[in-house]
């Protein structure tokens, strides 16, 4: 087991390195010139050249990448004399657009995305599994039809459209809630909740749709299994059957998919963050694409990749715990 974990970790690190190399290469191939983006119509060639040198893009890509890699372990220094500054390890670079070290930028924006992801995750699991279970237990009746309809509609609705619609109606037209203005929960808990409640609900309800379908179908399949019949034949109560037999089976694929979905969300729920003006990592990464801000781009891509990789490992291991048939005997 130990060796298994070590091997997985090693490959994860290799994967992350590959992601960073790939990001750098992709950036080098971009048609936009990042050095020209800050000066608008005042872009004289001298200005552009000065910018290129300042941003470090005049150096060969390999050297840029090496500086980046070094920075992760020993930190990185910029400027000289009175105006020198540095980004301490683990340095993912410095954003000249936002005048801050990428690591600290991620440190500020990631919690917002994390809170969004966690809240939405909890809600969508509750809604999705709950509605799906009700549908499965009332197969053919109105609850089932409603749940199936909800799942079909929810999966097809675009987050952007629904998010704007909810924002417009709740905040602007009917003024039920004030405009979301994010504050950290420890700073101002009520402002935090007010800012997060709509994005949580929108994201959760739309994500719950596919889980409703998964749960309903998983449960119906499980309920047809022989071992469930045996459980009933033992004289167990319905609640126990549902818990130990039906849900136990139905939830396994759901939990693993949810783990990967959640990890993807940690990389940044871009659309939700944009519509509800949440200062999260998703919005920052989109901004980095538009501004061609390479350090931020690489930083956020790698953070997102870390979560996907970690989630995959956890899901693999979790699957082994959840389903004994999958375990590799040591």
């Amino acid at each position, binding site marked *: 087991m130990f060796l298994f974990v070590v091997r997985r970790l090693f490959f994860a690190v290799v994967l992350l390195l590959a992601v960073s190399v790939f990001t750098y290469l992709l950036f080098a191939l971009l048609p936009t010139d990042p050095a020209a983006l800050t000066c608008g119509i005042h872009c004289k060639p001298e200005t552009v050249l000065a910018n290129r040198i300042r941003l470090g893009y005049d150096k060969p890509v390999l050297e840029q990448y090496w500086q980046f890699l070094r920075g992760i372990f020993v930190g990185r220094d910029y400027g000289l004399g009175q105006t020198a500054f540095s980004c301490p390890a683990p340095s993912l670079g410095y954003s000249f657009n936002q005048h801050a070290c990428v690591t600290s930028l991620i440190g500020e924006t990631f919690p917002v995305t994390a809170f969004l992801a966690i809240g939405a995750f909890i809600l969508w699991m509750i809604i999705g599994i709950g509605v799906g279970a009700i549908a499965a237990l009332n197969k053919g009746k109105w609850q089932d039809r409603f749940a199936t309809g909800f799942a079909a509609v929810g999966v097809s609705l675009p987050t952007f459209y629904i998010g704007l619609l909810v924002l417009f109606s709740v905040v602007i037209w009917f003024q039920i809630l004030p405009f979301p203005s994010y504050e950290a929960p420890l700073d101002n808990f009520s402002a935090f909740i007010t800012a997060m409640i709509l994005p949580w609900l929108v994201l959760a309800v739309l994500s719950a749709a596919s889980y409703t379908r998964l749960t309903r179908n998983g449960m119906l399949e499980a309920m047809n299994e*022989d071992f469930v019949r045996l459980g009933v034949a033992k004289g167990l*109560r319905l609640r126990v059957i549902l818990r130990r037999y039906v849900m136990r089976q139905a939830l396994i694929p759901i939990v693993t998919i949810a783990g990967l979905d959640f990890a993807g969300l940690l990389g940044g729920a871009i659309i939700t963050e944009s519509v509800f003006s949440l200062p999260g990592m998703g919005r920052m990464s989109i901004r980095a694409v538009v501004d061609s801000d390479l350090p931020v781009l690489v930083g956020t891509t790698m953070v997102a990749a870390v979560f996907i990789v970690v989630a995959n490992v956890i899901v693999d291991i979790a699957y082994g715990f959840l389903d*004994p048939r999958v375990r590799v005997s040591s």
Partner: protein
Amino acid sequence: MTENSVPVLSVQNLRVSFDTQDGTVHAVDGVSFDAYAGETICIVGESGSGKSVMASSIMRLNNSSTATTEGRILVKGLDVLSASEEEVRGIRGSEVAMIFQDPMSALNPYFTVGKQIAEAYVVHHPGASKHEIHDVVLAMMIKVGIPSPEKRIDEYPHQFSGGMRQRIVIAIALINNPKILIADEPTTALDVTVQAQILDLMMSLQKEFGMTIILITHDLGVVAEVAQDVIVMYAGHIVEQSHVDALFHAPTHPYSWGLLGSVASYGDNKRGGLVTISGSPPSLISLAVGCSFHPRCAHSKGEGSVCMTVSPSLRSVGSDGSRSACHLADDVLVSVGRGGFRS
């Protein structure tokens, strides 16, 4: 048939139908029989005869949202079909136990076998201590013949072979000393050698626990091995109910004749291969008027005869306690005599 005062199981006029997209399927259409303590009754029939549905009805295992059940099933004085959910749960696993056909899928893959056997015990012994449960489970595992039970009690079903899993299923079924054991094709999915082991186990446990076994099978070899009484089902009806010897030597229904004729027997010098019953089982949606077997029956009297217009009822035939649901049982078959049925 041994008479032992009160039957442990009394099925009275059981009808089970299912709503499907194509119409109402009459899976069981008026079945009645009694079973007594210590008996072994085999129920025989082809697929679609209604034998499995009837067996599941005894514990009310059919899906109530799609199945409509009529009639009475008395178990220890309780009418299972009209009892409350709690009362039925009370007899499941305690008075009546069931084992299923496919041992590979009968067990919950996510819990250890020890836990699953224990579960069956705890349902009906809620106050039992951990120690007691452990001892009981272990004892049962030994009784059903699982080697090194102390080690294997914590293993998962996928770590056992098919035959071992069936033993575990039996252990689960018998842990509460049920009066009635329903076994739905318990050996069909097993190798021939394992089949024999399982049957032997079941028989010895029956002797030890004194329980009634209702064994459903399509394998006449098994019937010959273990049955005392045999019920033959066709298209949701009982067409013949006889003592095992009587059935094999003097079947009283054309269908039973056909079943026996279709068994490949070693050493027989039949020429021309297996004998089959031509045609196929009828649709259970549109019930035929008259005898449900008549379209395939060589003895049917044809147009306008009683075979086509009146549904035969199960009645005594002959003097050895056999019952048959054939209009012609008394005259045609008795006169045709034993041995040799030509289709």
